[in-house]
């Protein structure tokens, strides 16, 4: 035993220089990978959300505890980054769509039909933005349709045409640039259906469908 012990020690002593260099290299490599993984996973969970923080209903995504003082750290970071001041879910619900109902990205190069069922709320609004949350300039200065403005059918349902060129009924213009990515935000104030904690509930099948009609 003492023999093997000394031999191991002597071999370690001999290789110490190159081993410590290699160890340093491994350590730096490990650290770089850890940095990318740590920041990357944090960014993803803050920007895109996860099953813990967001609900996905068709094309719509909703941060469950946005604006809530007891929100989880991911939701808080998401909110701080967004620069917004949303109402907590007992007063309002927000749903954001970056895709149509089939999952393709919303683009100003395409024409869409938003088909909505009646929403049981004091007020709601569907607004169109570019991917950064800015409104899109158009000659008719139409940026949204709300519960008071949208032309509705006898049963309370509504259809909104989202396109660059003028359309009858409710037309939401998507500007002149066909390469622009689009984002729709549905805000529902004072939902009349609530759960036991007072959070506004919108049945999944009541959220509007976004159908792509054609692309240029």
């Amino acid at each position, binding site marked *: 035993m003492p023999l093997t012990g000394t031999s191991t020690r002597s071999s370690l002593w001999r290789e110490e220089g190159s081993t410590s260099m290699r160890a340093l290299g491994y350590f730096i490599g490990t*650290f770089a990978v*850890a940095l990318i993984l740590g920041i990357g996973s*944090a*960014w993803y969970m803050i920007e895109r959300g996860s099953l813990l923080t967001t609900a996905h209903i068709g094309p719509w995504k909703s941060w469950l505890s946005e604006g809530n003082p007891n929100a989880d750290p991911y939701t808080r970071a998401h909110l701080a980054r967004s620069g917004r001041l949303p109402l907590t879910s007992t*007063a309002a619900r927000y749903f954001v769509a970056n895709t149509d109902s089939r999952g393709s990205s919303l683009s100003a190069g395409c024409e869409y039909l938003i088909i909505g069922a009646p929403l049981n709320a004091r007020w709601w609004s569907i607004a169109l933005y570019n991917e950064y949350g800015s409104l899109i300039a158009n000659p008719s200065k139409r940026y949204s349709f709300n519960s008071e403005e949208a032309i509705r059918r006898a049963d309370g349902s509504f259809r909104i045409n989202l396109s660059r060129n003028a359309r009858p009924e409710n037309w939401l213009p998507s500007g002149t640039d066909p390469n622009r990515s689009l984002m729709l935000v549905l805000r529902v104030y004072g939902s009349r259906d609530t759960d036991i904690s007072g959070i506004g509930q919108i049945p999944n099948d009541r959220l509007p469908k976004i159908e792509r009609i054609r692309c240029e």
Partner: protein
Amino acid sequence: MRVSLPGLYIALGVVLAGLIHVVAVLTLPMLAPRDAHARLAALGPANTMIQLPAAAPGQQVMPMMAPDVRYAVCRYDLSNGPVRLRAEIADELWLVAFYTPLGENYYAVIGADMKQPVIDLIIATKDQTVAEVGVDAPEAFDNVVVVSSPVVEGIALIRAPLAGPSRGAEAERALKATYCGPHKSSSPDPSGP
């Protein structure tokens, strides 16, 4: 037991990645330079009501602002005492929401829930007492709500959703009549602006 060297580095990498992940998520709210509080602070002083321009292309104080809601904001600072907020709500759609600088909506007044169309409240921290303030006019003080703010500096945001097309000017006029300012205990008449 012998742990292989690559295994050790993988374990170290995973632990480090986890630590970096946690630190990044927890510090981001403090580090975000363009959060809502910073955007609103650029508009004007604290303890006054500031009407936000109607959201339009290239003219948005905050991203994703509703184009069919008119907003007025009071960035309050309670370090010199409580702050009074008064608003005659034009219709039941109005909402008054209170935020910490991190954007936590800690309290909200919903217009539709109000018995009277007047919102009159005092924002104070837990340490500040407002009870003795109204002794001169106790009957006028009955309808005043005290909002207990968890932070010394915060935000009160009034939302006026438009109840129909071309109602913007009307909402802006109503918002102009709202008041936010220091609540002076020496003031004999708390109902005057």
